[in-house]
C-alpha cells in the first residue's frame, strides 16, 4: 500500500513538473515526434473507417451532387489566385465543448506553417495551429479560442467572429453600432497581406441572426460557418503567396 502511494505521488510530481515546464518553455520537437508516430496509425484507421462514415452521410443526405465532386479540385477552385497550396486529409479530430481541432496528414514538409489558412468546399474552415513534418493541427473557426476578423457583404462593415464550440453558431460582433447587416449576408475574411497568413476575401460563413437593439459598443449576432465540422474530409492549406 505504501509503495503504491509513493508511486502515485511520484507520478503526480512528474506531471506537475511537466506542466510547469510546458508553460515556461514549450518544446515543439517532442510533440512533433509524437505526432510523427501516431499519424500513420490514424491515417490507416481513417482510410479503413471513412467509407462507413461516407455511407452514413449518404443515407442522411440522399443524392447530394456536391459531395460527389472530387473534393480537392472543388476546394482548389475557391482558393485565391497566386497562392501555393497543399492538400491534406483529416485523420483525427478533437471536437468538444472547449475545443474544435482536427489533424491533417500533411505538414511542414509540404510547406505548411502555423497561421496558414485552411479551406474546405465553400471557404475558410480554420487556421493551422501546430505542425510536424507529416501532420498539422487545424484550429477550426468553431473552436472557442478562435477569433477571426471579418467583413459583412455588401456593406463591408468590419467585425470579428468567435467560435462557440461544437454544434453552436459562431458569435459575430460588428464594430460599428450602426452597421448595416442582415441575416444571410455573407462574411469574408478581413485578412492580412502577409505571405503566410489568412488572405482577405475568403468566405467564412453567413449571418444568421442579429440583435435588434444595437448596443453602443457595436452590434452582435450569430453566423453559420461554411461547413459542418463533422463532415470535413479533404482540406486545402494556403501555404504561401507566390
Amino acid at each position: 500500500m505504501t509503495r503504491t502511494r509513493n508511486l502515485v505521488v511520484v507520478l503526480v510530481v512528474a506531471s506537475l513538473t511537466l506542466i510547469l515546464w510546458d508553460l515556461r518553455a514549450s518544446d515543439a520537437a517532442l510533440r512533433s515526434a509524437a505526432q510523427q508516430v501516431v499519424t500513420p496509425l490514424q491515417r490507416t484507421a481513417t482510410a479503413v473507417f471513412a467509407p462507413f462514415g461516407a455511407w452514413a452521410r449518404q443515407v442522411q443526405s440522399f443524392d447530394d451532387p456536391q459531395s460527389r465532386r472530387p473534393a480537392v479540385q472543388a476546394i482548389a477552385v475557391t482558393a485565391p489566385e497566386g497562392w501555393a497550396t497543399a492538400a491534406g486529409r483529416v485523420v483525427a479530430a478533437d471536437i468538444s465543448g472547449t475545443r474544435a481541432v482536427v489533424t491533417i496528414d500533411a505538414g511542414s514538409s509540404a510547406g505548411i506553417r502555423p497561421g496558414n489558412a485552411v479551406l474546405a468546399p465553400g471557404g475558410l474552415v480554420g487556421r493551422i495551429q501546430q505542425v510536424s513534418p507529416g501532420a498539422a493541427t487545424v484550429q477550426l473557426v468553431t473552436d472557442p479560442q478562435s477569433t477571426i476578423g471579418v467583413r459583412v457583404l455588401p456593406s463591408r462593415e468590419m467585425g470579428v467572429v468567435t467560435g462557440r464550440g461544437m454544434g453552436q453558431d459562431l458569435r459575430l460582433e460588428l464594430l460599428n453600432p450602426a452597421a448595416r447587416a442582415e441575416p444571410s449576408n455573407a462574411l469574408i475574411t478581413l485578412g492580412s497581406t502577409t505571405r503566410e497568413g489568412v488572405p482577405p476575401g475568403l468566405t467564412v460563413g453567413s449571418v444568421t441572426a442579429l440583435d435588434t437593439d444595437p448596443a453602443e459598443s457595436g452590434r452582435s449576432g450569430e453566423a453559420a460557418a461554411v461547413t459542418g465540422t463533422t463532415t470535413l474530409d479533404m482540406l486545402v492549406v494556403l501555404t504561401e503567396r507566390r
Partner: protein
Amino acid sequence: MSAVPGRAEATHAPRVAVVGTLMVIAAFVVQTAVLPAVGVPVTVPAVLATVAVLAVAWGRRSGALIGFGAGLLLDLTGTGVLGVGALVGCLLGAAAGLVPVGRWRWSGAGWVVLLVVLAQGADTLLDALLLGQRLVASPAVLWSVTAAGICTVVLLPARDLLRSVVR
C-alpha cells in the same frame, strides 16, 4: 483504502505492460481517428475509459502507471498543456483501482462512469485555467458525459478477461 479481497495486484508485470500499452494505443486510435471518421460528432473519451477499466481489473498501481502513460500520449498529440492529461490519467487510474469489484459483472459500473466523467471535466478545466481559455456552455458537455458513460459500460465486460491476464 483497504485492499479489496480477491484482486490480483498486477502479479504479472510484463504481461500487464504489453496488454495495457496495446489497449491504450487501440483506444487512442479509436478516439482520435475511427470515431470521427465514421461521423461521431464529439470526442468520446475512450482512452480515459480504458484506463479506468484497466485500473479496475489490475489495481491502483498498474492503473496509475497506465493512466500516466495514456495521459502523456493524449498531451503530446493534443493541443492542451503537456502534463495535464498525465496528471488526470494517473489520478484516474489510482482512484479507479479502489472501485470495489464484486462477483456481479456490472458492480462498480456507476463509480467507474462517474470517475471517467470527472476526469474528463478536470482535464478540460485544468487546460482552460492554465491557458486562460474561454469556457463556453455548450451541448457538447452533455454529449461528452453520455459518451463517457456509454464507452465505459461497453468496455466494462472486458474486466473479467483482463483480470485473467494477470493471474
